[in-house]
């Protein structure tokens, strides 16, 4: 089966060590995690991992089932990229002299609608939110001028289908036979 980009959302109880349990499931099947982000979800006490992978759908289905069966994972979903709204953020550190000169580098930053996050006499930090291709394009254009540091966040994603996670919580309670 052809490889594709999928975004997996994992809703979990707040428990030490759970990230390890999650990552083991990917490791065992040799699935490379492209990015992973963890945060609290809209339900109090429930955490949400957003995991991006590039793999065959039938494998992703099995991994999601495997995730789902972990005791402290409430529910996992996977979505194609078209089914989610997502964002990433990247930070770039440049020498302030590059920017202050009002040269090409500054023009590039403005052209990409990136934001100046902090100035210092020596260095400047620029922030750009966008999909990976966009933050990468800015990186590629700035690179010839010298980037001192670069970091990109994992993906955060909201799914388009309207069902809320809370509804799944309720469903789980009904699905339980006892």
């Amino acid at each position, binding site marked *: 089966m052809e490889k594709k980009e999928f975004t997996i959302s994992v809703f*979990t*109880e707040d428990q*030490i*060590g759970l990230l*390890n*349990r999650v990552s*083991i499931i990917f490791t*065992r099947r040799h699935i490379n995690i492209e990015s992973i982000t963890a945060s609290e979800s809209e339900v109090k006490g429930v955490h949400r991992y957003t995991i991006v992978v590039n793999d065959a759908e039938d494998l992703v*289905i*099995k991994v999601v*089932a*495997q995730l*789902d*069966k972990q*005791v*402290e*994972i*409430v*529910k996992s979903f996977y979505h194609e990229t078209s089914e989610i709204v997502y964002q990433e953020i990247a930070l770039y550190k440049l020498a302030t002299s590059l920017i202050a000169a009002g040269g090409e580098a500054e023009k590039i930053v403005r052209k990409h609608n990136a934001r100046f996050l902090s100035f210092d006499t020596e260095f400047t930090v620029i922030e750009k939110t966008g999909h990976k291709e966009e933050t990468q394009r800015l990186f590629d254009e700035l690179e010839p001028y010298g980037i001192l540091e670069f970091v990109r966040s994992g993906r955060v994603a909201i799914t388009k289908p309207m069902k809320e996670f809370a509804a799944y*919580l309720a469903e*789980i309670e009904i*699905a*339980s*036979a*006892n």
Partner: protein
Amino acid sequence: MKKVEKSNEKESLLIDKEGINVITGKEAVVKSLIAEGVDLIFGYPGGAIMPVYDALYDYQDQIKHILTRHEQGATHAAQGYARVSGKVGVCIATSGPGATNLITGIADAQIDSTPMVCITGQVASHLLGTDAFQETDVVGISMPVTKWNVQVTRAEDIPGAIAKAFYIAKSGRPGPVLVDITKDAQFGEVDFQYKKCTNVRSYVPQPKVKLEAIQAAADLINNAKKPYILFGHGVLLGDAKEEFKTFVEKTGIPSAWTIMGLSALPTDHYLNVGMLGMHGNYGPNLLTNECDVLIAIGMRFDDRVTGDVSRYASQAKVIHLELDHAEIDKIIKADVAVVGNCKTSLQLITEAVKEGTHEEWLQKFRDCDEEENQKVINEELHPSDDKMISMGEVINLVSEASNGQATIVTDVGQHQMVAQRYYNYKRWRSNVTSGGLGTMGFALPAAIGAKFAQSENQVIAVIGDGGFQMTIQELGTIFQTKIDIKILILNNEFLGMVRQWQDLFFDKRYSSTEMVNPDFQTIARGYAIESNKVTERENLAAAVKEFVNHKGSYLLEVLVGKENNVFPMIPTGASVSEIRLD
């Protein structure tokens, strides 16, 4: 208000008027176990778990502790106990090496869905992460092989963690859990109020069976010409003895077992057609690729069962009855998935199916049996006089002498396959083996656990000369506890199963499989276990009788053909229909 009495008296607790019940963490461990109905645990002491052992000393009248000779032995004993009783097996060990010695048994219990609670001591919480003496990250190490695990660093969390551990180990698809308790938590204080755990929000152990699935399954079964049942461990774990038998008998469908499902239906039941998989029977494998509806019950299509999956039952519609939804479509795609406990789903399906017989179809299995008898079984059970004793003839005699009523605990290798092929299992849950992990050294300690669970049943451990020496030290446990275990060593002076593969697939290059063995009788004598050794066929029958009927533990060593191979066999990568009879 709480009052704490610090003294060395038996119960360092005081219950005051407001119902506050302050005890130490170590005592809370023991009281939690008692609250879960535990009266027997297997373990090995050491520094970080000493407080709990100290507390156990006060409760010897309520909890019996069996000191095994190695922590691995404690896990297998707990497994043997769990497998024949359906209850949770409990083992306990110290931190560091004690904890790491549990890992093989935990992995075995995980892959064979065996309910087990392991309690480990851990260094004091302020030392965690500092490479303290005997500190290992057992929670991290055991994570891939436990259903759930947790580290407890405060006494007040002990009862809750143990309650959750028992609930998770036993409910749904069972499995091993580990509770790691720091030494300071064992010494701390807790207001002990034990509440059993009955629910974990994120966990659905018993999904509700969907009636549409039942109907779809029944429709397929009712219209099938050549339906075929494969049953696995799930039938035993689901406690579906009567439900399964009723379903099989009402539908008249030929039924074959995985080695973990063995003893869910008596071997000699008229619809039990035999063993699946690599060394299973001829018909059950061959006809998998001829049936029109395959009904898999509580089994997970292990590769030892399926052979090449791309050529496995592709002509058949597949109905999969399974509790764990992650097993559905994992290996073999199900046309109808019935997710839920098979005790419930079998009952519902039985109501929805017509009574049936499948004489012609059954006849095909019998024809295959005939061929297997001629090419394999007759010679295995009654070798010609010039041949050395075969494993099959020993098992056959043991089966007759024990009337198929014993619990057979097998180790891993040729003898395992032979025991399962030729013992006539008549009792429910009377087969204990290491299936998924194939752990050599499993049988001796597992037999000890099985015997402690059911003292009324004869327990016979069938072991190879190789596997016996992996946990041979558990003879010490038998000696000290004076229990009655029959140990059958089928000695071929080889790591037989590996040698067989070298014979068939590696040009007979017997690389490191030959064994120079000690005198097992001398060893048995050291542990005051009576023994006998048979080398000639003429002595075998009498020796087996004496072995089975002896009061107390007994070791019988039988010298069998050195280079005998187990057949039939599906070579790795071959299809079930390419099963070889020689």
